[in-house]
């Protein structure tokens, strides 16, 4: 409830910038900026390495950094749970994966934390940060998140919540519907984060989503649904924070559609020439979320040329170091092919002893 006095004040004074309304300190904003630029620069380096023939496969977060970092900052990073998808590089950086670890995964190195080089880059999994292991099948992750939500409700009284991530194409799979329904029925502490970049490889939104309005689907489940500008990390943060608070209070799930853009082809194996026009792509480039946030911070005196240069220099060094480290790191060995299909007898015994 806003008091009448406040409302009048609001009328006269110009609306404060969003970060102030959200109570975000300059420090936090610069932290966000760091991750957004880091994600972009790591991603760009991966493409270079791919073109140089050093990395077989790249799948990008470019165009979705703001959505991912805004979301990460809206969660309780030290304790909440995550079921990401292959574009969530920005999220993973906020959750503690280092540039070195990202590059190790690009090169499928043995010490790569997601899978020990068994999976393609972007197939995240990071137990120590409560990030479930993810595979390639699109859409399955929503049900895993709902299962985590059930455990968080029953074992942890919603003190820990879970966020599930996917593209708009992933919502076409039946699993997404089954997850939405179950989360709604049991008021589970789950955030459904849809990073809508308007394409599923080549398939445009019109051929993917009946009604073309994902946020509107939430109402059918008796669940709040919101659509936000996925190019503005602060709007994403705001929506996630509100949804996270409600989830923790036991008020159940929320669907958040973040309207993003895809600044690259689907992956390094794709060529978008056949299905996207130059104009379409150029228009997206004009809306680059990294440039947007940089401009926003300059505009509000939080960032200046000097500071900006420092941040970028630091990031360039990190990216360089990560690349060099990963390129020379040892590859997995054939002998380990058969490992970890099942728990070993020792692992079973240890598990039983803890029951």
């Amino acid at each position, binding site marked *: 409830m806003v008091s009448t006095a406040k409302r009048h004040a609001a009328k006269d004074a110009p609306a404060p910038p969003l970060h102030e309304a959200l109570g975000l300190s300059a420090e936090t904003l610069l932290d966000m900026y760091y991750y957004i630029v880091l994600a972009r620069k790591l991603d760009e380096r991966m493409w270079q390495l791919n073109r140089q023939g050093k990395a077989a496969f790249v799948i990008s977060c470019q165009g979705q950094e703001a959505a991912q970092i805004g979301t990460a900052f809206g969660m309780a990073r030290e304790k909440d*749970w995550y*079921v990401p998808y292959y574009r969530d590089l920005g999220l993973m950086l906020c959750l503690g994966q280092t540039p070195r670890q990202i590059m190790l995964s690009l090169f499928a190195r043995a010490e790569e*934390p*997601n*899978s*020990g080089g*068994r*999976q393609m880059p972007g*197939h995240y*999994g*990071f*137990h120590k940060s409560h990030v*479930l*292991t993810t*595979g390639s*099948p699109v859409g*399955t992750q*929503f*049900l*895993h*998140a*709902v*299962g*985590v*939500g*059930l*455990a*968080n409700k*029953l*074992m942890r009284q919603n003190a820990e919540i*879970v966020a599930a991530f996917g593209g708009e194409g992933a919502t076409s799979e*039946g*699993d997404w519907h*089954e*997850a939405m*329904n*179950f989360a709604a*029925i049991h008021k589970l502490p789950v955030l459904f984060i849809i990073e809508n970049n308007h394409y599923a490889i080549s398939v445009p939104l019109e051929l993917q989503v009946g009604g073309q309005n994902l946020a509107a689907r939430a109402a059918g489940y008796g669940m709040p649904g919101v659509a936000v500008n996925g190019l503005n990390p602060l709007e994403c943060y705001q929506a996630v924070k509100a949804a996270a608070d409600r989830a923790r209070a036991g008020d159940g799930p929320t669907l958040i559609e973040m309207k993003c853009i895809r600044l690259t082809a689907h992956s390094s194996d794709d060529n978008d020439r056949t299905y996207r026009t130059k104009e379409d792509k150029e228009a997206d480039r004009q809306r680059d979320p990294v440039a947007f946030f940089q401009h926003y911070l300059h505009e509000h005196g939080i960032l200046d040329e000097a500071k900006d240069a420092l941040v970028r220099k630091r990031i360039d060094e990190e990216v360089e170091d990560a690349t060099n480290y990963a390129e020379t790191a040892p590859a997995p060995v054939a002998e380990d092919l058969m*490992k*970890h*299909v*099942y*728990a070993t007898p020792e*692992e*079973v015994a240890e*598990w*039983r002893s803890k*029951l």
Partner: protein
Amino acid sequence: MAVKTLIEAIRDGLREEMERDERMIIFGEDVGPRGGVFGVTEGFSKQFGADRVIDTPLAEALIAGVAIGASAAGMHPVAEIQFADFIMPAFDQIVSEASRFRYRSNNDWFLPMVIRAPYGGGIHGALYHSQSVEALFGHVPGLIVVIPSNPYDAKGLLKAAIRHPDPVLFFEHKGGYRLIKGDVPDGDYIVELGKCKVSRAGQHLTAVAWGMMHYRCLEAAEILAQDGITVEIVDVQTISPLDRATILDSVKKTGKCLVVYEDNRSGGWGAEIAASVAEAAFEYLDGPILRVTGPDVPAMPYNHAQEAAFMPNTEKIVAAMRELAAY
């Protein structure tokens, strides 16, 4: 020690585990107040409450997917698929996801979860309440597939499954629920997963089977015993990963191998057993590796005549045993 039916032993095992482990939850369609359509979880909803015995929506992918997420986050879910025939919508979640958490994460994640489902025919269930599905899942590394043949092993294997850190599929022959009886000790015991068992010793031939077909093989062996033909029977118990050693040892001894399964013949799990024997015990074989199986039709028709024609039964098994013994 008391004589119990298969379904009673399974119910006891589930109840004891629920009492022991508060992280265990049971969920599926109609498992709550209804106690499941076969009554396996009868009374559980009252005893353990709606938070631990959850009626899910009608969605099998949901049941499997939620089991995955809940076990990853620290619970020990035991899910029920109402009929094995209806596990197919969950195929992707089980085969592409559950089976791979440990492998694809290089041991960073694993899933202590169980999915139970009644399988099998001869109970007038028609095309979609009669099927055997073990071959589909036995083929998938990362899954443990179990089919108990009797009350004692059912209870012990189920407890082992619930206390295992990898996903276990536990299939129970619905026709055996009340038909198959046996001694079951009270209280806690475990029957280890991953082992076949010689359930009857014999000299003249080896019959390999599981679930209801194991029961039929025992009946058939009794009949042949009257003619002095002794059949050694191997109860597979754990379909996958398969304990080939126990099967091979028996076949090397008897020199003859019959595999019996209720599933469609082509590509049924018995094909893997026959192939393994033909590969590793060839020098010991004194006769062909015969199979008694369901035919290659989609599933069992509802009408009596065609259902009976589909089911492998004691009579068909006896005939095959005699044929093989004659070599």
